[in-house]
């Protein structure tokens, strides 16, 4: 089993992603955004960064990169698809996840560790985690404020599609523990099938104690476990 990590012009977390996945035993390979055939891969990660400069709107140009047709195919086929930060923005822009990410409530870039609470464990991102588990993971974004129309938010809640919510160290979710104004404190989201997921915090930045936290491991381990799992046809 092997996962692709897509490199758009302007991506910058791709090497960190390959490093972290490698540390956890996965075989990860960089793939340029003009690639049109990902059939040799069992899953695909869209890493953080500023694809195409984030010009126009985050993800707005990246969704038209040639590789995105293959990302869409893999999502439909039930293969694991994971978007982190800019990758999450691109998945939303491509319609593979609902909603959108807009500028943070305080209109400032935020780079600091935040706490997130695991809301459900039926996704490519949370399979190996425990419900209610609180993780300390760095956030690093300007457009990290999740938003969606009321009916879409209702669907997300009804379908239990929010996999991570911002919280405090004790797992309390409220407006004071919401760093960027995200609707319903949503930090991570999955699709109905659970094979496509996106999140704003960076789990690959929390895989070693020397960097301050290893809490991101369980999320990446979930992804890696899904790569190896039998995929329903």
């Amino acid at each position, binding site marked *: 089993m092997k996962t692709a990590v897509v490199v758009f012009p*302007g991506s910058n977390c791709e090497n960190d992603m390959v490093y972290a996945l490698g540390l956890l035993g996965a075989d990860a390979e960089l793939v340029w955004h003009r690639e049109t055939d990902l059939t040799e891969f069992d899953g695909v990660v869209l890493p953080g960064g500023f694809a195409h*400069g984030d*010009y126009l709107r985050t993800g707005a140009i990246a969704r038209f990169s040639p590789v995105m047709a293959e990302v869409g195919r893999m999502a439909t086929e039930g293969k694991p698809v994971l978007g982190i930060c800019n990758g999450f923005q691109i998945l939303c822009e491509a319609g593979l996840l609902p909603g959108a990410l807009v500028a943070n409530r305080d209109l400032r870039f935020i780079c600091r560790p935040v706490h997130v609470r695991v809301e459900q464990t039926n996704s490519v991102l949370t399979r190996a985690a425990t419900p209610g588990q609180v993780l300390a993971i760095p956030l690093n974004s*300007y457009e990290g404020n999740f938003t969606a129309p009321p009916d879409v938010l209702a669907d997300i809640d009804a379908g239990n599609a929010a996999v991570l919510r911002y919280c405090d160290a004790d797992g309390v979710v409220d407006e004071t523990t919401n760093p960027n104004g995200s609707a319903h404190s949503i930090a991570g989201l999955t699709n109905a099938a659970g094979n496509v997921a996106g999140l704003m915090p960076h789990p690959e930045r929390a895989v070693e104690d020397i960097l301050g936290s290893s809490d991101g491991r369980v999320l990446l381990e979930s992804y890696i476990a899904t790569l190896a799992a039998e995929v329903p046809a």
Partner: protein
Amino acid sequence: MTDPVPAHIQLGMTDDEYQAVIDLLEREPRPAELAMYSVMWSEHCSYKSSRAWLGRFPTEAPWVVVGPGENAGVVDLGDDWLAALRIESHNHPSFVEPYQGAATGVGGILRDIFTMGARPVAVWDPIRFGSLTDPHNRYLLAGVVSGIAGYGNAVGVPTLGGEVEFADPYAKNPLVNVMALGLLKRDQLVLSAASGVGNVAVLLGATTGRDGIGGASILASASFDAESGAKRPSVQIGDPFEEKKLIEACLELYEKGLVVGIQDLGAAGISCATSECAANGGMGMDVDLDDVHLREHDMNAGEILMSESQERMLAIVTPEDVDEVLALAEKWEINASTIGTVTAGGALIVSQDGDVVAEVPAASLSDDAPLYHRAAERPTWLDATWADSAELPAALDVGDALLRMLDDPALGDRSWIYEQYDHQLFLNTVIEPGNDGSLMRIKGTSKGLAVSTDGNGRLCYLDPRRGGARLVYESALNVAVTGARPYAVVDNLNFGNPEKPEVMWQFLETVEGMSEACEALGVPVIGGNVSFYNETDGVDIYPTPVVGMLGFCDPIPTDPPRLDQAADKMVLWIIGPENLTDFAASAYDRVILDHLGGRPTDVDHEIGPQVVAAAADMAHAGAPVLHDVSAGGVAVAVAEICIASRIGVELHDGDWHGWLSEAPHRFLAVLPAGESPDVGDLPAREIGIMGGTQIAFGRHGSALLDIATRTWRDAIPRRMT
């Protein structure tokens, strides 16, 4: 009717300098030639007022691979690893247009790093403004920080720290310095020399436009006045996305061995890059401006040559490799065009539309630049200022003074600034901004690099020689408390108008003080930048040298000291000579007394290096907390430990002066009960026990930890919202 202002005056050249060009060329310069000389001979490019003195800095050590003079200094870290370091200023552009000024400062310094073959891995930003009580200064701070964040985050290079100061002389002349670090393997090192007749000059990256024309000569090399707003078109506009692609493309060019030499286009644009490449290789170059990809039509030769459009590089490649270079540029979606050919004979010949528009000796643009030995004179006011030392009260509520200092934006929590910067990318950041020095690992090795940037304008105003020396020691101690040893220095010398003798005197004193301290510590200066003319409406800034210290350790401490590792019943120690009287330029003098005077204590070149070595040793021996004592003295240093560790402290009763004096060569250690610092003959005293909910100064008052924490956290946010 008055005579029109001559062209050379408009371009910032003196009559004598213009005459020197005529003597050199043995004729009147053509317009494009005049444009080139005006920029290349500007203060910013030629260091004409400082060059004669910079040789004072010690620059040699066995581990120095590239010293001052190249795009960046380079040191050897062992096992074929090299580190490249460079510091620059973008002061005037940031005052005129804070976002773009700061952003392009980041972009420019990164190009200096990857020009050497290194991948830029971290940036630091020392910044200085006027008081935040003035809305314009708040606008400048917010703009500069978001410019650094906007560019640095998007280009994909983490910002690992910096420093911030506020003082009135910076109100109309903020200082925006930027330092960058790169890593490379030895065989990737590239220099900016064009060799090989017939080799081709390829211009890579952004199109050339009218932005930034005269940035170096008009903005960076002249004083400011009320008309300065009209200089806004001289500020360049940054495009981090273009730069990101350019970095990746250039690194791949080096990896594939496709470049003979390379030079970034910064100040003076194509003039500087072509002439430096040719001169460094002892060659000439034929350049055809018709092949330059332009942003707008009908630019004249002078404009194309002087344009400071960002995100451009000039690569020298062999004719056989040109196609592969162009193909690689196509892959990374950047422009590339062949604009010149390396020639023998040393002439730089520039043509446009089939006509020669410039023909000059390439080396003359740098080598024949004016060199001034400007007059230097000790300021007449200095003795009176030294005599005017702080009037200290007999008794003091130190708890109350501490809270007032923690509320100061330069002493309070700086996370409002550094949390806007990506400081974690590349997974190397072990100790984050907000500590003494930031500590990085080099993934895949046992090596660590610690970096600190330190300046103190008020200290250097009172005594530039002592101040310069103290900054070097402070920076060294800041990296030492993380476990690294001082390894190399770069400096950014921000000064006022060098045509004033007292400014020149401040400059010379600073260079001397810094040099002495570097010699005592055995640390080489591998590069630097001089920024003169930081003067607005006739008022000069404080003399503000900024030291960028690179520390190195191998191995990196397994569990380096951190401010948040103090725990109940641990014991607080101070290591270093006691001094109860050093209040000159102290935070107490500034925040509580609103005063500036007295003479700062001198450094001790015997004790200073020993204290630095002792701190590094203790870091490797597993001390939970080590912390440099600087602005705000022991009181603020202790409070920072308490706030980070969320625990109070009971200090042993003593003379209150000892908690607020800012004498050099001291650091705090928090050790488990029963352990004492192993520092040989150096003075070490137990000064308190960790625990409780307050920061208590014996009979001299106390502050509740809760209130101290909130006050400290709000110091910048409450002023910015």
